[in-house]
């Protein structure tokens, strides 16, 4: 088998990995992206495309989201695939009086950080989105929220990276990471070895397995989100919808307890409605369930009752890479020179993919980043390093339940 040499190996062909490869290629850095299945065959191919600012906690998380969002216009021009990015606005739908009161505080805080957002009563909300149920209390609306096509975005990054000289390989599985005296020297794959001084772990929910190969403990757990897809139909909603339930809970944690799941809804360019979601810790189970299907249907009907006659033609589930503090894990890892983390975006991967690619590439190229990576580093968690093992080969988490790399 041929022996390949490259500057950077990026592990994972989802939206994060391909964004990193693209940003590296734009800087003239030789990159090789390795994906064991198809592009976007993991979480990036099993999610909605909401690009929201409202759901981000004011502070570093919101700042990251805003920087990322600003990059989408450029990407629309640069990527060879239509990524279907549009700013149709976003509604945070409020179902109870307590939620409304909590949202009053939250919206106030958001406006103080400069976010354009307004709290609307149900009449005002309905004038913008007539399909909303009368029984809702209102909604917080921001015109800055939008959506994109996650698969097109991933494909766009990958094809653009390749056009700029990156090597993009699918059906190629990384089996181990080569270490010498605490430095990365390359990876082992089922197609032979690749030499590289830098390895980027962009393996999403499988990032812990990749971390293990380098003796690193990555605290990412899969959190399943189920989605229903309706048949294509005329435009029924202008923007995206999510529930206030979880956002309000950031101010009043009581609100999140025992209330079950919230909704996440968008209508894509092709006219299908994506109806979500669930938040379940079920390990690596990519299946959808009866409870998931029926629960999402019920919760959707409570918000947009006019959708009742639409046919549901498909469902799928994605595994969000969940971290204990809700922030992604980005940047270098102490003790393993050349090993860079770029995973753990839990439900924000699509929205944060542009900025993640840029920050990681900037760090690799210049050793510094415009937005400091300290709040995102792996070291913020304890026990991030097991004793370093040279040439360690870890076990990959297998996809459970006979799921092929298709969604």
């Amino acid at each position, binding site marked *: 088998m041929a022996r390949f040499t490259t500057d950077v190996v990026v592990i994972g062909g989802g939206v994060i990995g391909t964004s990193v490869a693209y940003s590296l290629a734009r800087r003239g850095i030789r990159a090789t992206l390795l994906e064991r299945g198809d592009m976007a065959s993991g979480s990036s191919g099993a999610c909605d495309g909401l690009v929201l600012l409202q759901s981000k906690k004011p502070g570093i998380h919101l700042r990251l989201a805003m920087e990322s969002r600003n990059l989408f216009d450029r990407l629309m021009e640069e990527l060879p695939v239509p990524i279907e990015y549009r700013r149709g606005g976003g509604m945070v739908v409020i179902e109870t009086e307590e939620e409304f009161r909590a949202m009053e505080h939250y919206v106030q805080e958001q406006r103080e950080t400069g976010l354009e957002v307004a709290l609307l009563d149900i009449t005002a909300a309905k004038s913008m989105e007539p399909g909303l149920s009368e029984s809702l209390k209102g909604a917080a609306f921001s015109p800055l929220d939008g959506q994109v096509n996650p698969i097109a975005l991933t494909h766009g990054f990958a094809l653009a990276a390749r056009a700029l000289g990156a090597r993009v390989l699918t059906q190629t599985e990384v089996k181990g990471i080569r270490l010498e005296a605490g430095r990365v020297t390359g990876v082992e794959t089922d197609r032979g070895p690749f030499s590289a001084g830098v390895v980027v772990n962009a393996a999403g929910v499988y990032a812990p397995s990749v971390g293990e190969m380098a003796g690193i403990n990555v605290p990412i757990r899969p959190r399943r989100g189920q989605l229903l897809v309706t048949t294509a139909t005329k435009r029924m909603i202008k923007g995206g919808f999510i529930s206030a339930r979880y956002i309000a809970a950031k101010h009043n944690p009581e609100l999140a307890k025992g209330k079950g799941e919230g909704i996440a809804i968008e209508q894509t360019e092709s006219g299908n409605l994506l109806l979500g979601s669930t938040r379940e810790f079920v390990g690596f189970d990519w299946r959808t369930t009866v409870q998931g299907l*029926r629960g999402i249907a019920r919760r959707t009907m409570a918000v947009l009752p006019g959708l009742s006659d639409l046919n549901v033609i498909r469902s799928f589930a994605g595994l969000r890479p969940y971290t204990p503090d809700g922030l992604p894990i980005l940047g270098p890892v102490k003790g393993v020179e050349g090993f860079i983390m770029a995973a753990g975006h839990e439900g924000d991967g699509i929205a944060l993919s542009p900025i993640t690619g840029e920050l990681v590439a900037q760090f690799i190229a210049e050793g510094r980043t415009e937005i400091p990576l300290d709040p995102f580093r792996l070291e913020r968690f304890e026990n991030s390093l097991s004793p370093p093992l040279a040439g360690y080969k870890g076990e990959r988490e297998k996809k459970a339940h006979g799921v092929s790399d298709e*969604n």
Partner: protein
Amino acid sequence: MIRTCDVAIVGAGFAGLAAANVLARKGLDIRVFDENPHVGGQLLRRPGGSSHVPGGFEFDGIKQSGLRLITQLARCGVKVSSGTQVLGLFPGNTLLVEGGDGKVSEVSARCVLCAAGARETYLPFKGWTLPGVISTGSAQILIKSSGMLPAKETLVGGLGPLPFVLAREISRHGGKVLAVLDYAGVAVKIGLMKALPRSLPKLLDGASIITLLTLSGVRVRPRVRILQARGKTRLESVVAARVGADGQIISGTEFSCKTECLAVGFGFAPNIELPLQAGCAVEHLPERGGWVVRVGDLLETSLENVFAAGEVTGIAGARKSMIEGRIAGLAILERLGCPVPDSPHLLQGLARQRLEELRYGAILNRMCRLPSEWVKHIPDETIICRCEDIRMADIRKAMAQGFLTPGALRKACRCGLGNCQGRICSPILRDILAAETNTGTDRISAPSVRPPIKAVRLGALAENEESVT
């Protein structure tokens, strides 16, 4: 609230009905679900669901047996829920079901039998999406269930026995068949006839069909390909040409036929969506028609207490379906602790018969295969995914960009993401990928199937009320 029963049978065709008859009158709670308005599946169709069968010759013996299954079942009091779609099979053997009243409910069964039969496959040609181009099955259904001819004059074409059987049916009922365009040739059929003396009676049926057709003035044109269906908003004419022994179009042999209806039939694809969604192991067996559910000798799948019978375990016709329905019925009785006294002896005999029918099926399936290179001649503008309007050019472009698995193509092109959930285009895409990547079709992965396996109203999923099935 989940309702429970002892056995749930999905599909009331030959296999499902045969199983239900074996299971009846043993004190078990049996539910049979079928999506069609009438009981009997694709093969047992009678006008308006009546019990009268218009006279015929081939398959008549088996059809009479099938009709007896229906009447016997009615006498046993086993209820068949018609117009009922099964949307998925979940852990605990729980079926999600949409009743004829449009309401969704859950039914849990100790044993489940998947017997959803097969559907037709298609070889796309330019213009095949024009209204007026239909499947041979569609024409058969019109004739048998609704007493209607597909048109005053019908052009028939395709591969295998389907076009001939339809042409015979149309002629018998006083309709005109303009011609039968046979993609293979008489030589192929004679060659296959030699292969299995024991199936001679069935194959002689085939030979007599051709003879009868010729005698009634129907022109049979062997070794042709349909090149294009032409028309503005509906079919007006069909262009075809002869092919040589190597499958290449012989230039200068193009001919045109004016018609408002073209019925095409090629082969079958087993309806394995429910077992796939449930997580049953499947295998690719060309002699059984492609991707089928993997079953043991007693027709249990890789999932405990989930059985499969009929075309879903292999395309081989009505007799195999009936035999397998019986086998599954007996196996389920054993599993539920109420075996029939001479069960082992019966099962031995049925196993032998099953082997016979599988051999016959292998011939049938070989008749319905074209070498995978045929896809290379599909013109760029030909629609491949009808639901999403995806053309061959779009697929070629995606393949050139490196999207070379069914899942990758689905993501890159959207083929298979429409209302039919990939049922029409998946077999075609498999052949395209096999030809393009020089891989055997068995190495192209089977699709991953998620519920609902048939379209269902969002409102129905959301309701808490139980369906009265």
